[in-house]
């Protein structure tokens, strides 16, 4: 049962334009959402996050939007740069009795063309 879905396996964008990566979730118990970026042969690195009590969080060129009623979040990158080419994972946090767990989506490969 995929609780976090990234339905677009890949996305190609021209340098300078906006990249929009989407993520849907099914579990209403998730209370925090994170985006990770991964380059080949490296581990994922944290990019940006948003609490379920907010609908927007911005950090430089990166903005995450959360629509709780639709159980949907999106990551906007403006302007896109070639160095943004990577795999982007959406993750959702579920609080457990001992520690929290993250559930990851399958990832979206972003290619930014120069």
């Amino acid at each position: 049962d995929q609780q976090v879905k990234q339905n677009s396996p890949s996305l190609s964008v021209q340098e300078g334009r906006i990249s929009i990566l989407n993520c849907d979730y099914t579990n209403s118990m998730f209370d925090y959402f994170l985006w990770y970026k991964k380059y080949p042969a490296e581990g994922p690195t944290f990019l940006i996050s948003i609490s379920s009590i907010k609908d927007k969080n911005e950090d430089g060129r990166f903005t995450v939007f959360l629509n709780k009623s639709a159980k949907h979040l999106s990551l906007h990158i403006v302007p896109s740069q070639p160095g943004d080419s990577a795999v982007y994972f959406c993750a959702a946090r579920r609080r457990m009795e001992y520690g929290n767990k993250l559930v990851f989506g399958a990832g979206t490969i972003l290619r930014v063309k120069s």
Partner: protein
Amino acid sequence: NAGVTQTPKFRILKIGQSMTLQCAQDMNHNYMYWYRQDPGMGLKLIYYSVGAGITDKGEVPNGYNVSRSTTEDFPLRLELAAPSQTSVYFCASRRTSGRSDEQFFGPGTRLTVL
């Protein structure tokens, strides 16, 4: 700080062999995690630990064992390797408290079981 380190980077095992994937972090993080990533899939949680001496199962624990005798180290043991365990393994850690659930990942171990 070296962050999260993993050894080895690559390994080929024969069916039925055993091995230990090493993970260490120097950030004094209490929480540590083991994930596996299969092609086209998100990261799946194998085991996690909330502190030395405390471990618990994640989504896909079968075929694996862990121990946590120190804060720094969190080794993952495969007792009888099977082809289904061919994957990339990531170790991660995070602080006990903080404004987000940001996990810091190691570079991964690519394991092939033949």
